[in-house]
């Protein structure tokens, strides 16, 4: 087995003597590549963004992630590009040139991260110049405290296609680096599910990480240190998508990958993605990790509850399937047993015809919900025949709004029914007062969700 290393800006860099909790940002900065910065250490500001060559079918894509959250060891064998690798002061990359000449940097601290996020979108195959071509969501996970963003937006819109022969564009034509089996003290990347499960059996206290967007925060902000880490993000058995009669989504697919794979297949999820975290986080976070972490808020969990999702849990004893509604056992607790992994998420067919996702938060994008409400209805001959409503932010776990569903099911789909259901929905859960919202506001938002949906029809 070759010595663990990361190829950074084209040059192999050994990963030696690395504590498991050392994140990629500290690793890169330790190499003297200080362009990537720590702004928040929790994946909220994007100052640490770097590009990783990730698989895109048989090709690869420069994919920006928050370096502060990824354990350096988890990038063993991969290719990383930093702002220094995009260009240098005498040879600016087109993204860097546009940012520079348009006043896109003031203090400059967030700028290398912006350059990386913008470069990823710059290299998106098929992207076009101008406001309709450059998806600003691509840089929604980067915060700038100085510019007010307008010059950064204009820099993004000014970007034409990469010139022919651009080495970074050409790199995307060939595959991403193969998965490397990593085994060092305290850290392992198994290459298949069987190996992962046997590692988990050997190390019952192991921390399972995929994108590490949650564990990275625990490690950085709260000093959590894992006894043993098993990285499952590249397990092939956890990375498949089947969109037949039942939709099955591999647990180790990132949210971005799920978004791409599903397209418009599941309209409710298509509504969720743009409101769910940032592109930087969605490039790291996996669908399985998002559920296993059992946040009481989540944004995906309420939607998957409304879709009646089930989870396939794998262990050395074989698979078992549990409904998502029965998966959350309490605050940050699930029914996962020691040695068990989420292998896939299943969505039963047919999908409900009417769906909506309502996220209530302080900031318009990339904010943790005060309340999240997802609803899926089947309406036949003007009557609701089936109602599923998932709620986040109003109890110790994401919950189904069973009482509200009961009011809706069998009732005519009318404003009177919406009013009756809204009165019940407002009483669901046990909302609390916290820094995000008051309990009264949370209840009011529950009460208004169906009304707003009705008004929009």
């Amino acid at each position, binding site marked *: 087995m070759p010595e663990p290393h990361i190829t950074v800006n084209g040059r192999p860099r050994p990963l030696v003597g690395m504590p498991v909790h050392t994140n990629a940002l500290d690793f890169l900065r330790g190499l*003297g590549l*200080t362009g990537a910065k720590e702004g928040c250490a929790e994946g909220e500001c994007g100052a640490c963004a770097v590009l990783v060559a990730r698989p895109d079918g048989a090709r690869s894509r420069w994919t920006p992630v928050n370096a502060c959250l990824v354990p350096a060891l988890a990038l063993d064998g991969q290719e990383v590009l930093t702002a220094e690798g995009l260009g240098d002061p005498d040879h600016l990359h087109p993204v*860097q040139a546009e*940012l*520079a000449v348009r006043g896109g940097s003031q203090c*400059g601290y967030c700028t*290398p991260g912006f350059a990386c996020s913008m470069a990823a979108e710059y290299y998106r195959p098929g992207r076009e110049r101008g406001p309709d071509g450059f998806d600003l969501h691509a840089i929604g996970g980067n915060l700038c405290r100085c510019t*007010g963003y307008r010059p950064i937006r204009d820099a993004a819109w000014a970007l034409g296609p990469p010139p022919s022969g651009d080495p970074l564009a050409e790199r995307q034509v060939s595959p991403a680096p193969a998965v490397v089996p990593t085994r060092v003290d305290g850290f392992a990347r198994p290459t298949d599910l069987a190996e992962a499960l046997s590692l988990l059996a050997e190390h019952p206290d192991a921390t399972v990480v995929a994108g590490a967007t949650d564990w990275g925060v625990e490690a950085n902000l709260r000093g959590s240190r894992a006894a043993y880490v098993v990285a499952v993000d590249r397990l092939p058995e956890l990375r498949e998508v089947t969109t037949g009669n039942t939709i099955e989504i591999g647990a180790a697919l990132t949210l971005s990958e799920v978004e791409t794979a599903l397209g418009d297949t599941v309209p409710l999820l298509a509504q969720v993605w743009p409101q769910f975290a940032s592109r930087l986080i969605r490039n790291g976070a996996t669908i399985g990790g998002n559920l296993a972490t059992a946040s009481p808020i989540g944004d995906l969990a309420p939607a998957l509850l409304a879709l009646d999702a089930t989870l396939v849990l794998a262990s050395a004893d074989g698979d078992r399937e549990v409904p998502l509604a029965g998966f959350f056992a309490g605050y940050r607790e699930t029914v996962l047993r020691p040695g068990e992994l989420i292998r896939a998420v299943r969505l039963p067919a047919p999908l409900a015809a009417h769906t909506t996702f309502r996220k209530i938060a302080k900031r318009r994008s990339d904010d943790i919900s005060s309340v999240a409400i997802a609803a899926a209805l089947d309406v036949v001959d003007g009557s609701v025949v089936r109602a599923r409503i998932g709620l986040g932010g109003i109890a110790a776990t994401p919950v189904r709004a069973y009482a509200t569903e009961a009011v809706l099911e069998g009732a005519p789909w009318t404003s009177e029914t919406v009013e009756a259901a809204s009165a019940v929905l407002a009483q669901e859960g046990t909302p609390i007062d916290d820094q995000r919202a008051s309990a009264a506001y949370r209840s009011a938002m529950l009460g208004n969700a169906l009304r707003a949906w009705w008004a929009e029809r």
Partner: protein
Amino acid sequence: MSHLSRRPDDAVVGLALPHESAALHVTGHALYTDDLVQRTLGVLHAHPVCSPHPHARVTRIDTAPALAVAGVVRVLTADDVPGTNDSGVKHDEPLFPEIVMFVGHAVCWVLGETLEAARLGAEAVEVDYEPLPAIVALTEAIDAESFQGGQPVLSRGDVEQGLGGATHVFSGVTEMAGQEHFYLETHASLALVDEGGQVFVQSSTQHPTETQEIVAHVLGLDSHHVTVQCLRMGGGFGGKEMQPHGFAAVAALGATLTGRPVRLRLSRTHDMTMTGKRHGFHAQWRVGFDDEGRLTALEATLTSDGGWSLDLSEPVLARALCHVDNAYWIPHVRLLGRVARTHKTSQTAFRGFGGPQGMLVIEDILGRCAPLLGIDPVELRSSNFYVEGQATPYGQGVRHPERLVAAWDQVLRSARVAGRREEIAAFNAAHEHTKRGLAVTPVKFGISFNFTAFNQAGALVHVYKDGSVLINHGGTEMGQGLHTKMLQVAATTLGIPLERVRLAPTRTDKVPNTSATAASSSADLNGGAVKDACEQILTRLTDVAAGRELSWDELVREAYFSRVQLWAAGFYRTEGIHWDSTVMRGHPFKYFAYGVAAAEVEVDGFTGAYRTRRVDIVHDVGDSLSPLVDLGQVEGGFVQGMGWLTLEDLRWDESDGPGRGRLTTQSASTYKLPAFSELPDELNVALLERAHEDGVVYGSKAVGEPPLMLAFAVREALRDAVGAFGPDGTSVALASPATPEAVFWATERARSASPASLVEGLPGLVPDQPDPTAPRLHPTSEQVAEQAADTPAGT
């Protein structure tokens, strides 16, 4: 036109150039203080031991368990301080406190071979506390009469007479939250001791000289033993004006005691829980209007939340009182200011420095009263504008009020305000659950430090034998483009291409006794000093040329061989300003910066969520030194102001539970800054034309702070939209920040048309009156300036 403001043809100032470090920024090559750690050998890392209590006596510190942690090198405590255990300019901030004053207050610091070792060491230090009662909320402090510092009164005329003669008198309370700076680069210092025993501190500081002074004070050294350098900051916004000193002192103390470089960089959580923020304010007020809506009198008591120590709270309060008038003539005024002492971080400078808080009071008053007066808020505002010949309540004549009118008219025209308001009315009539609102608000902001002595600056300009030029000045670069402007000033004055001029980082051993890079004044001050230095050199070169047409390089070479000095120290002091802080009168500002913004928002009645559809701004920067830089300051300041007013929501635990006094929004995940999603759909910014400012460097005006207050237009537009959910004439009280939740509750009140929390008629709610026992005199640090001041104008 003055010599200082006259601009030559083909000037390099006035060109729209990118930031001088732009190519370094975008490639990650620009170095910030903490990046230097990678280039320094043997660095130790510092980690604080923070108080979990908002107020407590430290009864025991046992550092032995920390020293037992592998990699821990030393624990710094009060016993280690060779000089004075104090990091506050007011001498009220013990660096290693016996009584902790807020949750997060550092009791001691652990030095480790790695940050991890220092962190584990800090966890191992045993500290016993005897908890003491704590005041957390500003209103608790007001009830408990917990104040600190002087209580200035700013008055003119006879408020009772003004209110008595008014057709309408309203009274109410306006509260506003503070704001976290959230510069992307947290506080950082790297200190080392060189071979001569000189302490060299690299610090992310807006005020290197004061950092130098505090480091010397703590170490018991003279200032010439300490050098402070600031390469650049990853944002400052006022948060690095006074707050870096203690951290620099800890690093310097560690370096002197261990003989090794010490790095202190705060994590975001530490930065948010340990360092000061914009002051939240509470204001009680009574206001009178005549039957045409003209202001007749204003009486108000403003209480700022100073946190645990004075810091810059007194000057912030003074600036707040000096800006309550904003752009409006108010004949009779009495304003009382107080600084509350609470058990929170020591609130400090933040872009605008109290000006925004003072102006918010009058804008809130006008926004709430307009519907009750039955006067369109756009008209109510413009009909109260200052006119030529009128003076502010503190006695300074308002120069160029016609520029504000010009900007106002330009915005009304270019933003099609009248037409769009009709369109909005039609939209609102057609939409039950979504309402739009539009508002126009003005900014008048005084430029110069109130504290007269700070209005000076120095520069050092070197011309080398090959004709290349290196400049150094007393200001620091935090992204605002000061260095870009200084390069342009030097190139313009010397008449050479920009490429011949380079700028060296700010260092206290190059230019001493610098003022903070603050008060928007740094281009005015340092620009004056750079220009002075360049002119000294130019005068000598002109003598050498003696009328001959020589190229720059030839001239320089000839001057060298003629033994002519090719470098110069420049100096500048702002003329014509004075301020008496004991009576709050004088002519503290060189001039006023003006701006106008129109904003349109759309509010969702189901949630209170909103978006900013369009913003139009005309802002006065004089004759711009650097238009791209200035545009960036206007836009960036505006969005930062929007953040303060609508989104950024500092919350402290005010309960009686175990978390009392804790900042509950102490991370980027709980404290949200404007992101891309908050950028208005359409943002049009124009710089006011024909705006030459006489007596200022190359006719320019300051730009750093004033645009922040353009964001009032967004808050007032939200008020307008919320009002549309209620019957005509609904007065809307809106919390600040106007978060979606706050907007939602305001719409609910508007719908039910519940009365606004305004009292009409006399006596109404009478603001707290001055406390005769309160200390009225102002800081001793200003007393020299008071003696030197001329008789205030307008008295």
